[in-house]
C-alpha cells in the first residue's frame, strides 16, 4: 500500500497535468474562423504578448480591482442573485477553509497559529462550523434549483459534483464522530502519551473519558468508584488536556457520535475510523485529481475568463479569440441564468431541442466543436434559432461572451451557409399551441400598436419560417407583415385563420430587427393564443403535418 503522501502527490500531479492539458486545449481551440491556420506557437506567443501588455498597462489596476470584486467576492452574483451568491460563497469558502486548515494543516496551520492542535478549540469547533457552512450551502443550492423558474435539463456531471462534495464533507464528519468514540484510538493515545504502566490509572482515565469526552466506555462494565473519577480528571489534566478540548464543541460530529454509539459498541474492535479515514482521504484525492476534468475546473477557468474580459481589446486579437472561446467553454458553471433570460427560450417549450437554450447549447458546443469535424444537426438547429440578441452575454455571471461564441460556432454549423430549418423538423410538436402568456395583452386591439410601421417588410425578410418555405403564401397563408397590416386595417378575423400564427417559432427576430420597434412577435404570439381560445386553431385541429 503506497503511503498517503504518495497518493496525494499522485493526485496533485494528475491535477496539475490536467490543468496543463486544459490550457493546451485552449491553445488548440478550433472554434471560429480565426482558428484556421493559427499555429500553436503563434497562439502561445499572442497569449504571452497579451499578458505582457496587460501587466505593463495601467489597466492592471482595474483588473486587480475587478478580480477582487468579481472573482473573490462574486460581486456580480450578490447584486442579482443573493441566494445563489450565498450558496456559492458558503460552499466555496467553507471548503477552502477546510482545505487550508484541515487537509493541509501540516503545512498551513503553523503559518497562522503557533499553537495549532486540531483537537483543541477553537479549531475543533471551527472545523465543524466550516463543514456546516458547506453543507448549508449545498442545501441552498439544491433547494434553489428546485425553485428555478425555467426547468432546464441538468447534466449528470452537476449532480455528481454536488454529491462528491457532500460525500467528502459528510465522511469527514462521520469520521470525526467515530474518532471521538473509538476506544482503540484511546488505547493507542494512552500508550503513546501516558505510558500505560498502571492499569488502574488507565481505567481511571478511560472512565473519565467515557463520562466527559464521549469515548466508548470499557467493554466490561464496572462501577466506577467515586475516587476514580477524580483520579481520571487529574490524569486527564496532566496528560490529555493540552491537546484535547471537550468534543462537545464539535457541534456536528459530537451529536452524531451519540447516535452512532450503539453501532460502535458492536464494532468496537474494528478500526471503523480507519475505513472512514480512507474513504475521506481517497475522496479528497479523487476530487483533486478530477478537478481539471470536471465542472469544478471553473474555479480556475472563470477567474481567468473574467480577467480576460476586463483586459479589453488587448486580449481580443484574432489570434486569441479561439483560445478565449475555449476558455469560455470551461468557465461555464452551467448555472442556467442565461437560459432564464434567453429571448428564444419560449421556443424550447414548442421544440424540445435543449440546444435552443444557451446553457445547454454551450456544453453541446463543447462536446461537438472540441472534437474536430463533427456535424451535429440538433446543435445546428438550436444555433440558428438563436437571434444573437446578446442577452445571455449580458447576464452571464462568469463573464462569458456567449454571443461571440454562438456567432463563431454558427458559421461552422451551417454547411453552405443555409440555416437548418427551425420549427419544421419532424420532432416539432406544433399540434399543441402554447398558451403561456395571458390570452390577450390587448396589443392587437390597440391602433397605436401599428402606428410606427413604415411598411419596410423587414419582419418578413428576417423571418426564419418564411425563409424556410419555398412558397410562403402556400405554406403559411400570410407573412408577418401581412398579418400586421390586416390587423392595422382592423381585419383581425382574416388574420386569425392563417397558418403563420401556428408556424411562428417566436424567435423574436422580426421584433428585434423592426426599425420602428413594432412588437411583431408579441402580436403574433397574442393572436395565436386568441385563435386557440376561439377554437380557431385551424392548423392543429386539422392535424396538419409539419
Amino acid at each position, binding site marked *: 500500500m503506497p503511503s498517503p503522501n504518495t497518493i496525494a502527490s499522485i493526485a496533485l500531479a494528475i491535477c496539475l497535468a490536467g490543468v496543463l492539458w486544459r490550457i493546451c486545449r485552449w491553445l488548440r481551440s478550433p472554434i471560429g474562423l480565426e482558428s484556421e491556420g493559427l499555429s500553436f506557437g503563434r497562439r502561445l506567443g499572442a497569449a504571452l504578448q497579451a499578458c505582457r501588455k496587460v501587466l505593463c498597462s495601467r489597466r492592471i489596476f482595474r483588473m486587480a480591482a475587478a478580480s477582487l470584486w468579481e472573482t473573490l467576492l462574486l460581486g456580480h452574483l450578490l447584486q442579482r442573485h443573493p441566494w445563489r451568491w450565498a450558496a456559492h460563497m458558503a460552499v466555496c469558502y467553507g471548503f477552502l477553509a477546510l482545505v487550508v486548515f484541515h487537509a493541509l494543516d501540516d503545512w498551513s496551520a503553523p503559518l497562522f497559529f503557533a499553537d495549532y492542535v486540531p483537537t483543541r478549540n477553537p479549531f475543533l469547533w471551527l472545523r465543524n462550523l466550516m463543514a456546516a457552512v458547506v453543507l448549508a450551502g449545498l442545501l441552498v443550492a439544491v433547494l434553489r434549483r428546485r425553485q428555478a423558474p425555467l426547468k432546464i435539463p441538468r447534466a449528470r456531471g452537476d449532480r455528481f459534483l454536488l454529491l462528491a462534495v457532500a460525500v467528502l464533507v459528510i465522511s469527514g464528519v462521520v469520521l470525526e464522530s467515530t474518532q471521538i468514540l473509538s476506544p482503540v484510538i484511546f488505547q493507542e493515545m494512552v500508550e503513546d502519551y501516558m505510558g500505560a504502566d498502571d492499569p488502574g490509572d488507565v481505567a481511571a482515565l478511560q472512565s473519565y473519558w467515557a463520562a466527559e469526552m464521549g469515548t466508548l466506555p470499557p467493554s466490561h462494565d464496572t462501577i466506577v468508584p467515586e475516587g476514580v473519577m477524580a483520579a481520571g480528571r487529574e490524569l486527564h489534566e496532566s496528560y490529555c488536556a493540552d491537546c484535547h478540548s471537550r468534543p462537545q464543541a464539535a457541534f456536528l460530529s459530537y451529536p452524531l457520535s451519540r447516535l452512532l454509539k450503539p453501532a460502535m459498541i458492536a464494532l468496537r474492535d474494528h478500526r471503523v475510523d480507519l475505513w472512514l479515514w480512507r474513504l475521506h482521504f481517497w475522496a479528497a484525492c479523487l476530487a483533486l485529481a478530477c478537478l481539471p476534468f470536471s465542472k469544478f475546473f471553473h474555479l480556475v477557468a472563470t477567474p481567468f475568463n473574467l480577467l480576460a474580459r476586463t483586459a479589453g481589446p488587448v486580449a481580443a486579437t484574432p489570434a486569441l479569440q479561439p483560445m478565449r472561446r475555449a476558455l469560455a467553454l470551461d468557465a461555464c458553471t452551467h448555472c442556467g441564468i442565461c437560459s432564464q433570460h434567453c429571448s428564444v427560450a419560449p421556443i424550447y417549450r414548442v421544440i424540445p431541442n435543449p440546444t435552443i437554450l444557451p446553457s445547454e447549447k454551450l456544453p453541446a458546443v463543447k462536446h461537438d466543436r472540441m472534437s474536430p469535424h463533427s456535424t451535429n444537426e440538433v446543435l445546428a438547429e438550436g444555433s440558428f434559432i438563436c437571434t444573437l440578441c446578446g442577452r445571455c452575454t449580458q447576464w452571464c455571471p462568469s463573464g462569458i461572451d456567449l454571443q461571440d461564441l454562438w456567432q463563431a460556432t454558427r458559421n461552422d454549423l451551417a454547411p453552405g451557409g443555409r440555416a437548418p430549418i427551425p420549427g419544421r423538423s419532424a420532432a416539432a410538436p406544433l399540434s399543441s399551441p402554447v398558451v403561456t402568456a395571458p390570452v390577450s395583452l390587448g396589443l392587437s386591439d390597440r*391602433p*397605436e400598436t*401599428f*402606428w*410606427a*410601421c*413604415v*411598411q*419596410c*417588410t423587414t419582419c418578413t425578410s428576417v423571418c426564419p419560417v418564411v425563409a424556410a418555405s419555398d*412558397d*410562403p*403564401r*402556400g405554406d403559411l*397563408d*400570410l407573412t408577418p*407583415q*401581412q398579418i400586421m*397590416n*390586416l390587423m*392595422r*386595417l*382592423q*381585419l383581425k378575423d*382574416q388574420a386569425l385563420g*392563417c397558418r403563420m400564427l401556428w408556424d411562428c417559432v417566436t424567435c423574436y427576430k422580426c421584433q428585434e430587427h423592426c426599425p*420602428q420597434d413594432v412588437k411583431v412577435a408579441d402580436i403574433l404570439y397574442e393572436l395565436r393564443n386568441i385563435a386557440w381560445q376561439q377554437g380557431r386553431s385551424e392548423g392543429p385541429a386539422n392535424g396538419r403535418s409539419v
Partner: protein
Amino acid sequence: METQVLIIGGGVTGTGLARDLTLRGVACLLVEKQDINAGASGGNHGLLHSGARYIASDPAAAAECHRENLLLKQLAPHCIEDTGGLFVAVAGDDENYVADFPAKCAVCGIPARPLTPTEARQMEPALSKDIIAAYAVDDAAIDPFKLSLDNLAQARQNGCQLMRFSQVTGIATRSGRIQTVQVRNHLTGRATDIRADVVVNAAGAWAGQVAALAGIPIHIRYSKGSLLVTHHRIGGRVINRLRKATDGDILVPGGTVSILGTTSERCTSPDDIHPKVHEVDHIIDEGAAMIPALATIRYIRAYCGVRPLISSSDEGDDRSVSRGYALIDHATEDPGLENFITISGGKLTTFRLMAEKTADRVCRRLSHCSPCRTHCDPLPQTVDARWTEPGLAPSLWVQNNDSRDILLCECEMVPQSVVDQIVQSIRNQNGHPSLNAIGLRSRIGKGPCQGTFCSQRLAAYLYDLGALTHDQGLHELRQFLEKRWRGQQPLLWDISLAQAELLEAMHSGLFGLEQVDAPPPGDDRP
C-alpha cells in the same frame, strides 16, 4: 364632335348629371380637365349630412339635405356606410345654440334624439369627458369616388362619352348661343371642337373660369377647406361639434380611417391649393377638444378642396354663405346665352338633386320631356369603382389565396389582380393607366407609407404589363409621389416624419429622382 349636351366638369355633379340625362335618353359628352373628382368632389369629408349642421345658417338647405340623405341611403347603399352621427357640445360651447338645437331641427324635419353625456360616451368612448350635451342624428359616410365612378359607369353604358384630361380652352358664341366649345387634351395636345345643343358648366370651383370663356362674369369666392386622414378609424359614428359651424368640428369615419375637418380659408384661385401647416394644427387643436385622442394619434395625410361660393359680395364670413346650390340658366341672365347653364355650389349630399334640377332645365331647353329617374332607380354598383373601398381588396385577396397574386401595395393590401382589372377598365375607356389614374381608382398609395414602396412596385409592374414605356415611369413616379407629398407635407412630425425620411432616402438618396429632368406640365402623359 357633336352631342346633345356637353357637360363640363367630371365631379360628382357632372357625373350625376350625365347619368340623369342619359337615363332620360339624352346624349351627352362629359369633358374633364383632369381626372374624375379632381376638385371639391374629391376634397371633402365624404359626409352624407343629416342636415343638422345647417339648421341655423340655412334651414332650407338643411331640409333638402335630410331628404336627399334618406333617398341616397335607399338608392346607393353600396356607396354609403350608414354610421349614424352625433352632435356633441363640450364645456365652453355656446349654450344658447345648444338649447335651440332640438327646436331648429324639428322645424327642418330633421330627427335629433337627445342623449345624456354618459350615453354618448358609451356609444363613442373616444369622446371627451367634457361633453355637456349630445344628440343622435342620421349622418352617414359616403364614398364620393365610388359615387362618381358608378354614376359615370351607368352614364357610359347608356351612351355618354367621356374625355378626361381635356380642358375647355375656348367657347365660340354667336348671336346669344354657344356655337362650339374648344377642348384641348393636354396629354396628347390634340384640340377638338365640340358642338352641343346645350352646354352645362358643372366645373365647380372653375365654373367662373369656364363662364368667362363664354364672356359671362360669374363671381365666385373660393373657400379652401382642409381635412386630415387619421391612421386608424376613430369611433363608429360621424361626430359633429354642436355649435355654429366652424373649423375642425366634424370627424367622419370612412372604412378603416377617419377624416377630420375642416377649415375655411379664402384663396384667390382654385388651382395649386395646398393644405397648410397652420390649418392642420388648428384642426387638430379644435378636434381634440371634442375627442382628446386626436391630439396624439398618427395622421396619414391632409388634403383640401375649394368650395365654390357664388355670392354677390365679398363681405361676410364664408361659412355663412348659403351652401345651397346655384343653378343659373344664362338664357335668363344678362348677358345671356340661351344654351348655357351653370350649376355650382351645393353639397355632396345634394348632388343628385342638383343634377335632377339641372337636367330638368336642360330638358326644357331641349324640349325633351322624359321625367327624372334618379330619385327612384337604384344606382348600380360597378366593378370600376369597387376597389376604392378600404378593406375589400385585402379580404378578397386573403380568401383567394393565390400565391402568384402578389401584393403591390402592402399598407392597403392591393394585389396585382386588382391592378390588372383597373388597367383593363381604363384601357376600355381608351385611357392611359398612369400611376395616378390607378391610385385614384384603388387604395394604392393611400396607406401609411404614402407611396414609399408601392409607387416603384406599381411602376415596375406597369412596365411588365407594357403599360409604361421609355422613361415614362420616372415622370409618373415623380408625379405620383408629388401628389402624395401634397397631403403629407403639412403633417410631418413623429412617425410620419420618419416615414417621409425613408421615402426621400430611397427615392432621392438612392434613386436620384430629383435629378430627373422635371416632367412636362400636366398630370399625365399618354
